[in-house]
């Protein structure tokens, strides 16, 4: 059915948008590298393919006049999801262009910001591309050709969004969300050890260590005392 297909495609687009944003955040920092730029390029292309596919599907569904009111409301909701994703993508692409230009890689002395992030981002990119491992090509003109490609892609995306706005008559404010406030609290995502929680106990670490040590010593003393007695 059209709706299920749409939903899966939108989920995929959403996933790619989230991964792309994560990758752009790493740009310009010490985890920046040629690999990262390539990952960005690949993720971008995947996002664009998904975007075009989503758009054609959704526009064909919305143009269909013979659908019921609930269906139409549902498609409008999906359309709002789609256009919000595209907005995020567009902004992220423009920002990646700017940051990419400000922090060129093929220069004798790289000035990357020491943010503390040193690991690689291939797991994130692999998630975006839905592959197990990322394969990289030895691309040499990461600063010039890549960025000019990015510029053309940005103009394409902007044009697509303008077309979308003009041609599709959807009133976004009329869409009612299905999730109520705090829906994500009930989500069954594993919390794990919350990483910021680690930071917050770091300050009290010394005191906790002291308390733990104290109890160990008391326990040992008790055991020894018991043995003596």
């Amino acid at each position, binding site marked *: 059915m059209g709706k299920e297909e749409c939903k899966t495609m939108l989920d995929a687009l959403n996933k790619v948008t989230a991964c792309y944003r994560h990758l752009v*955040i790493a740009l310009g920092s010490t985890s920046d590298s040629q690999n990262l730029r390539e990952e960005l390029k690949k993720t971008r292309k995947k996002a664009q393919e998904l975007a075009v596919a989503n758009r054609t599907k959704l526009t064909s569904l919305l143009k269909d006049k013979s659908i019921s009111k609930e269906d139409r409301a549902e498609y409008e909701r999906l359309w709002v999801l789609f256009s919000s994703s595209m907005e995020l993508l567009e902004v992220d692409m423009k920002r990646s262009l700017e940051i990419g230009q400000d922090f060129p890689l093929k220069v004798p002395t790289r000035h990357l910001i*020491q943010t503390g992030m040193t690991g690689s981002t291939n797991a994130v990119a692999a998630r975006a591309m839905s592959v197990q491992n990322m394969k990289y090509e030895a691309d040499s003109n990461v600063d010039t050709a890549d960025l000019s490609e990015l510029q053309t892609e940005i103009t394409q995306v902007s044009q697509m969004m303008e077309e979308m*706005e003009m041609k599709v008559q959807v009133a976004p404010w009329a869409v009612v969300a299905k999730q109520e406030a705090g829906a994500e609290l009930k989500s069954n995502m594993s*919390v794990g050890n919350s990483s910021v929680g680690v930071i917050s106990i770091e300050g009290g670490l010394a005191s906790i260590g002291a308390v733990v040590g104290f109890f160990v010593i008391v326990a040992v003393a008790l055991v020894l005392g018991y043995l003596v007695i």
Partner: protein
Amino acid sequence: MTIRNALRDHGQRYRPRMSCLRKVEKVLLEMQDPNTGVKSQPQRLVITTIPHAITGEDIVAWLADRFQIEAQEAKNFGSVLVALGYIYPLQDHKRLVIKADASLYRFQTPYFWPTQQWPVEDTDYAIYLAKRNIRKKGILELHEQEQYNRLHKWMNHKWDFIVMQAKEQYRAAKERKKPDRVVFDCQERAYWVVHRPPPGTVSAMDYGLDRRTDPNAVEVTDKALYKCKPFTIYHGRKHYFLPVRCVTDSELFSCRLVKYCATYSGHDPFLSKCLPSNPWLTDDTTYWSLNMPNVEIPSKMRVERWTFSFKELLSDPRGRDDFRLFLKKEFSGENLAFWEGCEDLKWGTAATMKEKAEQIYKTFLARGAPRWINIDGKTMEITVKGLKHPHRYVLDAAQTHIYMLMKKDSYGRYLKSPVFKDTMKKEQAAQPQPHRHPATGAGAEGQDGPEQGGSPSSS
């Protein structure tokens, strides 16, 4: 989906130029230099070690050395860097100041730097709050909780997207190794502490009102355009000497502003002396009685203002009376009467509009009307057509035509006419009164009577 306005809009929606940001970015890049920059050390946490932590005292010392300033000033500068969000504290993350001791800081990633052209979006903030909800199972600060509820109400149509995106971003972040995850969370948290502080905080991001023009739109980089050349043009019988060749809109505006200030500075009671005396200071209301709207004899300054522009003349009731007198003598009074009728229509109540429009048509525009005005055929056609469905601005075209006619033709003649010359002869030159303190001045300071002849006599 946000609504984009594809048409030209005249709203104020641009953030002002923040030129300090580019400068700070340069300083920040210098701080990264492995040899001459700030020394970094690893930060030890429970299980992990994260590199690139810098101490407050190192930062302050580096700034003092680089700019050759005192320690206190370096500390202030460091605090500005933290307040803008380029460096964030690792302990006590909510207070954006720099402490010149061993407390640790870290550099922010370029994506989270404050930029002029990328405003901070509420959508992103909503996604961040949703992510925090997921991670901390609902423990948000009070102001964050309020913001969350507010955003849920106002961005309800996007809420599904926000929740979906929050989940996906959370999952994407989990793909990274532990130290990077920690750093990422700290970065994001620091970003939102800067850009969405609790209410009542004085933030470095406060900037007052939005601006009308985009500071990033046009950057004139050609230095030649800024050279000032004397420029003379010959127009009619006058030479106009323009000291600066104005090329951009803002330069044209500033030329006009300078000219306006030069012309009107003598007439401004704040900038130059108010004759005879400022009523607020001396309690002498002569100034007001001399400048009443329909005073018989206008003051000298007032008459001078009429010569500045036609608009000045018309907007002053006494000036308009004078002009009306002149037009009566010239037998073209219907122009001014029509213009006044149009103004009345524009500013009048909606209920009377229809009758007023009909009245004006009958008196001025119809064929064989008693006070028929002379406007060209095209304008007449448009006006008559519009009068079938009269509205407030239906006579705008005709009014403009008559206004320009009066301005170009009658106004010039008025300034040379005996009527005007008569008025100038009669005008009063107000005498400056010595400033008397209201507590001491018992006697009233009378004003000299109207002067005959143009020259002010010394009192």
